[in-house]
Structures are given as C-alpha cells and as structure tokens.
C-alpha cells in the first residue's frame, strides 16, 4: 500500500517542488478526515499543492479567497427564487467539493469563519430548510498569513481546535527554489495524472485504522495532552505559568489518528513514540493557549511542546 503513497507523492512532486511537510500534512489530513491550517507567507504553492493532490486522487477541489465582505451564503450557497416557475431552488456554494482551499481565512468576519468551521466539523450544510451531506472525502486547507495583522479577524481558539494540524510552511531551500525557477521559466512542470481514486483512498483509511498502537503509546498520548492542561503533575512547574488553556480532547483524538497515519506513511504497521514526535508539534501548536505572561516573554507553543516531550518518559 505504501507504493500507492509513494506514487501519490511522486505525482504531486511533478507540480510541487519541496514543501514535504505541507504535502505530508495534507495526506495525513486526507487519510484521517482532518483539516489542515497552514500558516505561511503568500507564494509557497498552497493552491498548487491542493490542486495537485486533488488531481492525483481524482477529487474535486475549489478555492475561496476570504475577504472582509464575504458572507456565509457566499461559501455555503443560498436559496434562489425562480420567477419562471415561482419556486426556490438551491444554489450550492463552493463548499461542495472534496478539497477546499480557504485562502486567508482570517480575513473574513467571524460569522463566515463560524459557518465554515461548523461545516468542517459536521460535514453537512443546511441551506434554508434543506440539509446536505458533504461528499467524502472532505478536507479543508485554510491558510493564514502571519505577516499581515491589520484588518484581520483572528480565529478563536475554540475554532482553531477544529483543525487537526497547523503546519508552518517555510520557504523552499535554495536548491528547491532554483529548480522551481527553472521549471517555471521553461514551463516544464509535469501534468498531474490520477494515480488513486476515492475507493483507494478509503481503503488506505481502513488500513490506517488497522495500524497497531500499543496501550503504552496510548497512555503516552494522553499523558502528553494532560501535561498541557496540568503541567505541574508531570514536574513541569515552569510551564504552568505559561499555559492558559491546554489541549482539548480533540487533540488526543487527532494525535492518535495522526500518529497512526504517520506510522502508515512511514511504512510501519505500528505506532512508535517517534511517530508521535513527528506529528506532535503540528497537532498541538494551535491548541495550547498561552498566558499573557508567556506571550509577553515571547514564548512559543512549540517550545512548550518540546519541553513536554523532553520531560515525559517515552514508552
């Protein structure tokens, strides 16, 4: 089955140079039915990656550019009056897709963000009196620009919790950038072909479910999440003043699923502590709410996560 993953990665690499962490995050999200929040400056191939992934699996993809004047009906859809037969018909919004790129999600007002995040959680949309189930798979990759903070509506922590992972996308390395430059100039990016289909994807999801996770690892996951809520219990007194709120139960679930998916992507049929180490930062980064003191000191959630990992004994 890993051959399919390798094939998928190879196909995506025709259009996307580098950005392995983003691609892997998307795959984990796709395999775990989770959503991804990507933080990075513009121009880091976010849309390209979504499009490449959707085409490689034969899925539908759409992109919404979030703006301050966006309305919920713009993304969900609306009931439209038809004067010819004096009836209302449903016009579905761009949410009705498999892979959705919600670009600069923090530029839209809270009610639009809430509408989207509700759909992300429930995977169904209600327009007027009619409810529509969203087609599986449904993955939202939302982006945030970290450098422009004027005129944005920061996502509330409760809503951030609905994202399975928060990936910080970095610029490509110099070698990668050189390859991007040459390929873009010569227009030699390859055509993406569908190497998987939905059924293959569902099968992969089932296989992930079969990845073994030991009880000790499960306890280890719970301990990590608990340590974010009550660090003093684990001898992390110095973290207590930096954390306002710890991770939610969703974090445990997502870490559990992501660790299994990571182990699967690595070709293992069991989860090791290292798999948790690979995904822990992406899972918890946006779920730990820092205290004012910590923010004043410039403490980052990644540092807190690292300290927890270093402190808690691994199984």
């Amino acid at each position, binding site marked *: 089955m890993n051959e399919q993953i390798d094939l998928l990665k190879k196909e995506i690499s025709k259009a996307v140079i580098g950005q392995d962490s983003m691609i892997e995050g998307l795959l984990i999200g796709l395999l775990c039915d989770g959503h991804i929040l990507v933080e990075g400056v513009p121009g880091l191939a976010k849309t390209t990656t979504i499009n490449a992934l959707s085409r490689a699996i034969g899925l539908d993809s759409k992109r919404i550019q979030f703006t301050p004047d966006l309305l919920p009906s713009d993304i969900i859809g609306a009931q439209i009056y038809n004067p010819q037969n004096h009836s209302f018909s449903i016009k579905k919004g761009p949410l009705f897709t498999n892979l959705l790129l919600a670009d600069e999600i923090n530029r839209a007002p809270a009610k639009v963000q809430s509408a989207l995040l509700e759909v992300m959680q429930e995977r169904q949309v209600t327009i007027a009196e009619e409810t529509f189930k969203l087609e599986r798979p449904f993955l939202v990759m939302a982006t945030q620009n970290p450098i422009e903070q004027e005129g944005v509506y920061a996502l509330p922590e409760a809503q951030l919790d609905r994202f399975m992972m928060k990936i910080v996308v970095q610029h490509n390395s110099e070698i990668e950038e050189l390859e991007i430059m040459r390929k873009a100039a010569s227009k030699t990016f390859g055509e993406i072909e569908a190497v998987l289909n939905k059924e293959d994807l569902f099968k992969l999801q089932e296989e992930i479910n079969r990845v073994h996770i030991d009880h000790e690892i499960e306890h280890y996951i719970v301990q990590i999440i608990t340590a974010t809520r009550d660090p003093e219990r684990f001898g992390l007194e110095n973290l207590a003043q930096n954390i306002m709120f710890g991770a939610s139960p969703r974090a445990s679930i997502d870490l559990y699923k992501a660790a299994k998916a990571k182990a699967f992507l690595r070709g293992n049929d*069991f989860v090791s502590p290292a798999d*948790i*180490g690979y995904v822990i930062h992406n899972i918890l980064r946006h779920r730990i709410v820092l205290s004012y003191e910590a923010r004043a000191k410039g403490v980052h959630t990644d540092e807190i996560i*690292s300290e927890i990992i270093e402190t808690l*004994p691994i199984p």
Partner: protein
Amino acid sequence: MNSLMKDTYVKSNLGNLSLRLLILLLSIVILHAEDFTYTFNIDKQAPYVKEPVVLTLSLNQTNHDLVMFFNFSIKKSKDYTFQRINIQESDSYHNAKVRYFYLLYPLRSGDINITFDLVQKTTTDESIAFSIAGDRDHVEGITTIDTKIDLPSLQLKVKPLPKDTLLIGDFTLTHTIKKHNAKVHEPIPMQVHIKGTGYPPILEKLLPKEGDFTRFTEKPIVKSFLRNNDTQSTVTYPIALSHTQSFTLSPIVIKAFDPKTQRAYTLTVPAQKFKIQEVEPHTLVDKVDSPDVLKEDWSWLRTLLSYILVFAAGYLTALSWKWKKRRSYKEDHPLIRKIQECKDEKSLLQVLMATDNKDLTPSIEQLESSLYGNGKIKFNKIKQDALEKIK
C-alpha cells in the same frame, strides 16, 4: 640767466627774403601783419647745445575795429625742447597786446630752425556780448574767424659742446653712503645728488662699468623749476650695491660745461671701498616666517597605516565578538547540552523528538529501530551525528 643779448629788428610780413635774412642776422625781428604787428626777440643767436635761449613774441593789434585774439605755440621738433615761461595779455578787446615768453634748449649743434604756429582769431562785439549774456545753462563759444598766420622760422646756429660733456650748466655734486661695511648680499644704500642751474642733469647711467658687484638702481628723483630764465634742478639718484666679497667702487666722473662762463669742469665721486663680511648661510634663513625644510613627506603613510590599524582593530574586535558568540552558542546551546547529557537511547530519542527538526530524522529512525525493532546502533555515533547536524 645772467645776461641777455637783446637786439631788435623790425620786418614787414610783406618784406622780401633778403631783408628778412639781414634782420635775422641782426637778431632783431619785427613783423607786421595787416591787422597786427609781431616782434620776435631771442636773447642769444648762437647758443651751445642745451644752453637756454629765451624767446619772446610780442603781438600788437593795429586794426582796432575788430576784436582780436591769438593762439601761439612753438612747433615741436627733435632739434630742440622748449617750455613756456609766461604770457602777458592786455584786457582791451580792440587793442590786443600779447607777449609770449619761452625757454628753449637746442638739442644738437649746427643750424636749427625754430618754427611756429600762430592763429589770428577775430570776432565782433556782438558775438562777445552774446557769449557773455548766455547764462550758465546756456553757454556758447565765441564765434570767431580763425586765420592761420605763416610766421617765418627762426634760425639758431648752435655750437657743439666739449667732448664727453654730460651736464650743461652750473652744477655741484654730493653723495651719501650709509655704510662701508656690510654682510654678504646685504644692500649698501647710496645716493648721488646733482644740484644746480642748467639743462636738467638727468643721466641714463651714473655708475661706472667697472666692478662685478650687484647694482640696484631706481628712477632718479627730479625736482626742477624755472628761475631767472633758466632751469634750476636737484636730481637724486638712489642706488644700492651688494656683493659677496669686499669690493671697490671706481670713481664716478661726470664732465660738465657751463656756457655762461665757458668753463668745462668735472663732478666726481671718489673711489669707495666697501668691506663685506662673510656670514654663515644658516643665519640668513628667516627664523620667523621660514618654511619647513624641504624633505620627503611620508606623513600620509603614517596616517594611512593608523587608519588601517584602527579599521583592523575594529574589524577584529567585531569578529572576535562574533567568534565568541558562536563559540558560546556552540558551548551553551541548550539542545547540545541536552544531547551531551543523554545517557541512554530513550532519553536521546526524547530529546531529538522534541526538536521537531527534519535534519535529525535519520538519527530518530536509527534510535527507533534500535529501541522498537531489531536495529543495532552505536549510541555515541548517533549522538555525535546529531550534534554535528545541530552545529
């Protein structure tokens, strides 16, 4: 002028040439024009070169119906030089009487002709009245009828001077020398004064040719004025001499001739000895405003080197801070310390997992393989690899 030869001759301007020559020989000239008469008078007929001759012209109006004026001058010539001494005029318009007095010096020997310019200007009472009536804002010249009168020239038989005569007249010579002892190249001021009556004693060259000393000369200071129909002059020659060694100024001998007394005489400045004292060259240097001794200026190199030194010191200081920071980063980086403190594989895996560093993935996988698989690893090697990747 001690004595004047005065002979008067009268000649009509319509008279013949032979009569005029006869009268000139008698040194009396009386001329008669239609409306006026004129009379030339010269005090000597045969002067020496540069001997003063007093020339007088008297103009007397004979036609009293007219208002008459005259313009008279002697024509310039290289044979003589002249200077007007005086003009005497009557105040009557209808009875003009004018006398011109000139002092004239012949400049060469032999026969020389003295020529004249005379313009007769006639006008009327009305014209003068109109001219006078014009106020200061409306001045008009008197309208006259000008008639050029051809006056006969006067001839002088000029006698030559004794040979090598430089001064003509009665002169005395004095001199002043400030000092006779001086240092090398020090100027010795000297003045020669020639004073007396006669042709102004201005000499082109006063000092003798002999001697290799340095001569400093200036334009002579001349003070001249007319007195008793002759010129009284005081001429001062400022001179300075300098030399590198003692020297003797040859006597200055000036030959002179006095036409009045027919006496030839010499004016002399006797030979002068000057003693020149040797001086050390360095004492001649201006100690106050003297420039620096000329030498190769290498101060720019010293300045440049000092700049380079300062720059290098600053650069190395900055570099040393950087080295120190890097070294302290390497030594004090908490991750390095943590890795170094790891005693077993699990603790190392923990630390490496916490870094979230993709570069450490191979190390993590090796540890994972050892801990949860069948892999065999060298713990210290993995530790070292991890440290190198962090550094």
